[in-house]
């Protein structure tokens, strides 16, 4: 296969798995769009709130509701305009713009100005929808109806007769509003429209004159988290009181709906009474992600790229035993046999595979006792030890790499199930893991393989790289990104150490709850909550409390995309308690000391023995008490 062909095939694959952005060219969007499992719920008439982190596909889903995108999809399945059940238009909330209505001084009634701004934005989009509906249906929106909308928007001088002209007039009204916002004390007069009124007049006119013809009009609002709290209250009111033909579809980051109040005092926006709430991560992510990957694999095959059509074949997996072998179970098993030589147990273990024998040493390292005694116990209780191997085998893999200096891989992260777990409901992460694995796989291949499958090694290196990339991007995502990265680095280091040497014999500790003073817990909780929104952490209501000192039940863990970077388990197992004070200290000048404290001053892996990706952060980790280093 020629070099050029190699490059073409690789480029095709990378293009397919490179991204899941809503900004794709229309042709790709049509071919590769996979209907999310929650689309039926989203398409229902009722308002709904779509909750998901960056990269979970919110924008793509909302975009698919847009009037023109929806028709494209219908046409693809042999249907037409007449089959379209709704017409969506999309407003993306731009933080820099909505924060112009800052509401911190009382020069203007900022709420009224914001409502007017939102009316203008929505009516501009409705003008485009009206033009499109006129084209599709052949019906006309009468001039009086257009002028009524303009009048309700406070554009009294409007003399246009068409919806495009209305769009132009709205733009100029936005410019006028901009002048006022920048010079609130000036005498410039801006007539403000009433909250939601022009939007309702517009949609009612579309219905009355037969353009929407009984179909629902969805006002889709993306990036709702960018709104100030009082602005959320205004739009919450619209959502709560939405009535046909108008409905609202909201896209918001987790924890981004900070305010559930409406303008009506204590009347809150409630789910499910007022709207559905769809948490993307809970909506059949595995099925959806597999579908997305399968569609792309099929597209790759159709383009002549030799890849298996089944995702499980494309992402090669390892059994526990196979992984133990790769991580050095043989080396440890040889040591076990050497110690048992000359005893009655030697023969029994010599006939066992190394992937089981090494476990004897692991158990000894954690529980103590003589190896011969443990070997005798195994022989006497084979079934019990097999159960133990099943329960602790995975945890023992992290221990296996201990002391294995220079090993490039000390734990494998591969296979469909592992990648799905690490992506944790985020389709962009899932595709990035595959895309990066392809790059690693092809970087070592001289020629394009007859059938390209992704080896456990390529997948592991990719998982580590994606984790590192995401970690470094954290600083650029959140307002407290710098602090979030410090928290992730510290907590990741604690779990890294515990994976190799568990405290109190509890392996696979991957989550935590907070204890300590209320104000400190509150400070860290706020930061962790922001981190959840930016996919630095995951949260779920905690299980039962394990000590009196715990005052909050939220149970946090690092986002699983960081598992390979910190070489920790991606599975959800045990939790521990962190003192909020230690986490606050991580944000200060001496994070190393705080990490030591979180590890109860147990010895840590020496800097020169750290995996290279962690060693890069030695300036951060490097100020622990000198006595707390491990030989």
């Amino acid at each position, binding site marked *: 296969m020629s070099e050029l062909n190699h490059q073409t095939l690789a480029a095709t694959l990378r293009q397919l798995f490179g991204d899941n952005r809503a900004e794709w060219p229309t042709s790709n969007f049509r071919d590769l769009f996979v209907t999310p499992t929650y689309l039926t719920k989203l398409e229902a008439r009722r308002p709904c709130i779509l909750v998901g982190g960056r990269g979970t596909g919110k924008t793509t889903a909302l975009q698919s509701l847009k009037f023109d995108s929806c028709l494209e999809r219908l046409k693809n399945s042999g249907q037409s305009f007449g089959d379209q059940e709704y017409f969506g238009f999309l407003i993306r909330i731009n933080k820099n713009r909505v924060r*112009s209505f800052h509401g911190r001084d009382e020069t203007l009634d900022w709420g009224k100005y914001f409502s007017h701004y939102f009316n203008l934005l929505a009516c501009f989009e409705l003008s485009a929808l009206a033009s499109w509906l006129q084209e599709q249906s052949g019906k006309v929106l009468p001039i009086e109806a257009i002028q009524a909308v303009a009048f309700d928007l406070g554009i009294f001088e409007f003399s246009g007769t068409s919806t495009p002209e209305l769009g132009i007039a709205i733009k100029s009204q936005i410019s006028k509003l901009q002048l006022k916002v920048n010079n609130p004390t000036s005498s410039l007069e801006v007539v403000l429209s009433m909250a939601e009124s022009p939007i309702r007049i517009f949609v009612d006119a579309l219905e009355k004159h037969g353009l929407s013809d009984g179909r629902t009009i969805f006002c889709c609002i993306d*990036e709702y988290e960018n709104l100030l709290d009082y602005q959320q209250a205004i739009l919450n009111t619209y959502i709560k009181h939405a009535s046909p033909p108008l409905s609202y579809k909201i896209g918001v980051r987790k924890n981004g709906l900070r305010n559930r109040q409406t303008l009506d005092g204590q009347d809150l926006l409630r789910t499910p009474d007022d709207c559905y709430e769809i948490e993307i991560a809970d909506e059949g992510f595995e099925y959806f992600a597999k579908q997305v990957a399968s569609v792309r694999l099929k597209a790759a095959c159709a383009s002549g790229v030799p890849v298996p059509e089944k995702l499980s074949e494309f992402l090669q997996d390892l059994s526990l035993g196979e992984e133990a072998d790769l991580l050095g179970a043989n080396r440890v098993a040889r040591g076990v046999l050497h110690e048992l030589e000359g005893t009655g147990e030697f023969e029994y273990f010599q006939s066992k595979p190394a992937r089981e024998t090494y476990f004897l040493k692991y158990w000894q390292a954690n529980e103590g006792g003589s190896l011969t005694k443990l070997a005798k116990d195994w022989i006497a209780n084979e079934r019990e030890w097999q159960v133990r191997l099943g329960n602790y085998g995975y945890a023992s893999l992290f221990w296996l790499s201990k002391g294995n200096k220079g090993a490039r891989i000390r734990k494998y992260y591969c296979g469909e199930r592992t990648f799905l777990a690490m992506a944790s409901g985020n389709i962009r992460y899932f595709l990035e893991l595959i895309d990066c694995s392809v790059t690693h796989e092809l970087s070592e291949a001289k020629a394009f393989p007859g059938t390209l499958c992704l080896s456990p090694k390529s997948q592991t290196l990719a998982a580590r790289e994606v984790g590192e990339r995401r970690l470094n991007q954290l600083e*650029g*995502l959140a307002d*407290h990104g*710098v602090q979030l990265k410090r928290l992730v680095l510290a907590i990741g280091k604690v779990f890294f150490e515990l994976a190799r040497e568990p405290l109190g014999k509890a392996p696979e500790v991957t989550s935590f709850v907070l204890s300590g003073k209320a104000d400190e817990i509150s400070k860290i909780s706020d930061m962790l909550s922001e981190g959840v929104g930016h996919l630095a952490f995951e949260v779920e209501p905690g299980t039962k409390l394990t000590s009196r000192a715990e005052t909050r039940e939220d149970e946090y863990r690092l986002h699983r995309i960081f598992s390979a970077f910190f070489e920790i388990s991606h599975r959800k197992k045990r939790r521990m308690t962190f003192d909020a004070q230690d986490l606050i200290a991580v944000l200060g000048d001496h994070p190393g000391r705080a990490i030591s404290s979180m590890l109860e001053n147990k010895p840590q892996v020496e800097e020169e023995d750290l995996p290279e990706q962690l060693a890069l952060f030695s300036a951060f980790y490097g100020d622990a008490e000198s006595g707390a280093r491990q030989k």
Partner: protein
Amino acid sequence: MRMPPEHTLRFDSFGLKDLLVDETVISIETSPEERGRVDAWEELKRAKSEHLILLQDATPDTATILSKYESQTILLTDSERLVSLVKSDNVLIDITALPHHVWAPVFQAYVKAGKQVRVLYVEPDGYKTHPSPASANLFDLSISFGGLSPMPGFAKLAGPADDDPALFVAFLGFEGNRAERIINQLEPQPRVIPVVGAPGFQINYPAITVACNRSFLNEFDCNADIRLAKASCPFEAFDTLASIRRDFPDHYLYIAPVGTRPHALGALRYAIANESHCEILFDHPVRQSNRTNGRGLIHVFSFAS
């Protein structure tokens, strides 16, 4: 022979004799940094206090003004009132220690009012390094960020449509995550043109700037698009924007002035002159009180109308 530009004067120390006739100085009331304490302002306070206006930021929209006669709170969007504070035609704004959201509207108000505006900026001798850095950002300059929001008087309510061409011009500084955090608020993300301050205040600063922004430059694949403008020169920053506009005539410019103050000054001057196709994006850092040490060269930039 090429003559040095007349729009910039440089001083080792600045005294009352260096002020223009009837020039009114606007500066910060209390500077948290050594370089922000200009001895001449103390002298001016004693000798001609009616020519000194001291500001202290109060809220994101207001500042407290201390002049000879009174202390008052002023809305930073109230350009008429800002202009009325200065009776003379000559005004010198010391931007060294004033937060951007305070000096930017003040500067805009006087430029638009047609005053003879000069701006003074004192370089630091050095920046505070972080004792335990978690990234390529080796400096410890900000405590936190207020987040993206418009500076008073620079709000934009409309921008390009999704399919209209746009650029993100980032004036880069030592805090590499700032430009990235700002562009992450934009959808769809426009092409990036980074601007690095070179020559820098010190010979190694341009290299440090690139190193601190490595992740941003790689992520947006814009290493080859880097443009250079002297770190201490607002006029070079202005010209850089003008040349970008010439190269991309139909593009809307999102400008993130997160590098040096002289660059931010040049960027804002450009935005004031080109409102139709510019939008300033700023993230409002809360500064460490001791983020710089010492005092370097003093620059006075003249924006005579």
